[in-house]
């Protein structure tokens, strides 16, 4: 009914790949977060005063 692979060799290379990919994904996550903050900072600064008032209320 089923084929099982308990003794699969995860491969030491596969662990290293996961560590690298996770680091890259983590890096892009922080860059995106930083970029969003930067964007909202400038949007706030350059937004017309009327919009600024709306956002603050």
């Amino acid at each position, binding site marked *: *009914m*089923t*084929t*099982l*692979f*308990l*003794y*699969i*060799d*995860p*491969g*030491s*290379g*596969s*662990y*290293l*790949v*996961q*560590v*690298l*990919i*996770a680091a*890259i*994904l*983590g890096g892009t*996550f922080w860059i995106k977060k930083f970029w969003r903050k930067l964007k909202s900072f400038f949007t706030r600064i350059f937004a017309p005063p009327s919009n600024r008032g709306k956002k603050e209320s």
Partner: protein
Amino acid sequence: MTNQTGHHTPALQIHHPASFRDPAGFIFTVDGVVYRQVNRSYTRQYEQLIKSGLYQTLTQESLLISHTEVAGPAQTPDHHLTLLPEQLTRITYPAEWCPEQLKAAALLTLRIQQLAMTHGMCLKDATPFNIQFHKGRPILIDTLSFDLYNPTRPWIAYRQFCECFLFPLYIHQYARTGTAWVATAWPEGIPASLTARLLPLKSRWNTGAWLHVFLQARISSRETTAAPRSLSFSETKLARLIGHLESIVSRVSTSPAKPSAWSNYYSETALGQSYLEAKEQLYRQYLHQIRFTDALDLGCNEGRFAKILAETGASVMAVDSDWLCIETLYNKHLPNILPLCIDLANPTPASGFGNTERSSFTDRASSGLVIALALIHHLALRNNIPLPLIADYFSRLSNQYLLIEFVPLSDEKARELIARKETPTVGYDPEHFESAFNRHFRIERRERITGTDRVLYLLTKFDRT
């Protein structure tokens, strides 16, 4: 019969030939009923699965096959529990799935891994052989696939997931050839190094392919036995990795760049709508005459006639060699229809260790009713299979009835198939057809389809007992 531990068990209990890899337990059958033994070594994991609520969550969402714990037959001294899972009618293999089925199975695996992590567990393997199609959707059938989660370790099944699911899907995305051939040639997964060679240059612009295929191929080529084992990991990192896999798999495009030769067969058929309507009317009449609980549609195309079978409440296996037709039918998620990519001139062989791990299509497909509409001219004229051999094979597939359409040489579609043949076609006419099928079947109905030379037969298999 002798089982894994060398103890003798009663002859009626049959240890499943594919269930030998996992020391956590195994599948066995008693009088055709499938059971699963949980071994003592798996006690903690099984308790975590149940007590954490993971089992309940997964079965409520129909992601994992449900079971009941039974006092029933124990097999070996390391027996902890016997489970009686919900019984499946048909078993299929990834070599028979269309790309959309493989993609659905991949997303199911990732969803289960995500849910398992929130319950302190993880999937210890990620093989499509642990997934079956049940009521039109994929479901995990291996209750013992879960292990206790250690957040400092990466995912043990990552490489297997990539090789069995992600890489075949990437190859298909760029080559549009379906995934069945990859699964046939590489039942345990296609390596990253080979996938990297098969993918075109433009795939390097695909972030997912770059990270999981090319980076992995590069690293595994440098892999040494002394590679660092002390790499630390975290739950956040793994959740991010699984989330990324889920996002790239769900974005893999499975539809073809252009329609296949068969995908618009019904709308573009030269014989027109009136032929289809006349055939359907006759077909419905024949179906009213007989009773069946399971059916097999050979050359189902997009399933127009399989759906009529399913309306009767029968469980239908619908097969076609064209993966795009199967994909169209699968995407309707009809609970009674199991669509599969099968080339009848070369159906799935028995394979795996000792040729018994995975059974052949023929062994799994036999049904009370077999239908073969507008198919026989392809087998006889394109594949050059003589009518008596086709009749022999169909009698192996049918347990009782065969509903078959004969397409004579005078038919336009049959003429197209022999147009470029230099040798004359012999032994393909109504007389040869009837004498070939008369060896196994009795003719119950024989009617010409209005406006064509085609004939629709209803045959009953001779009772040989």
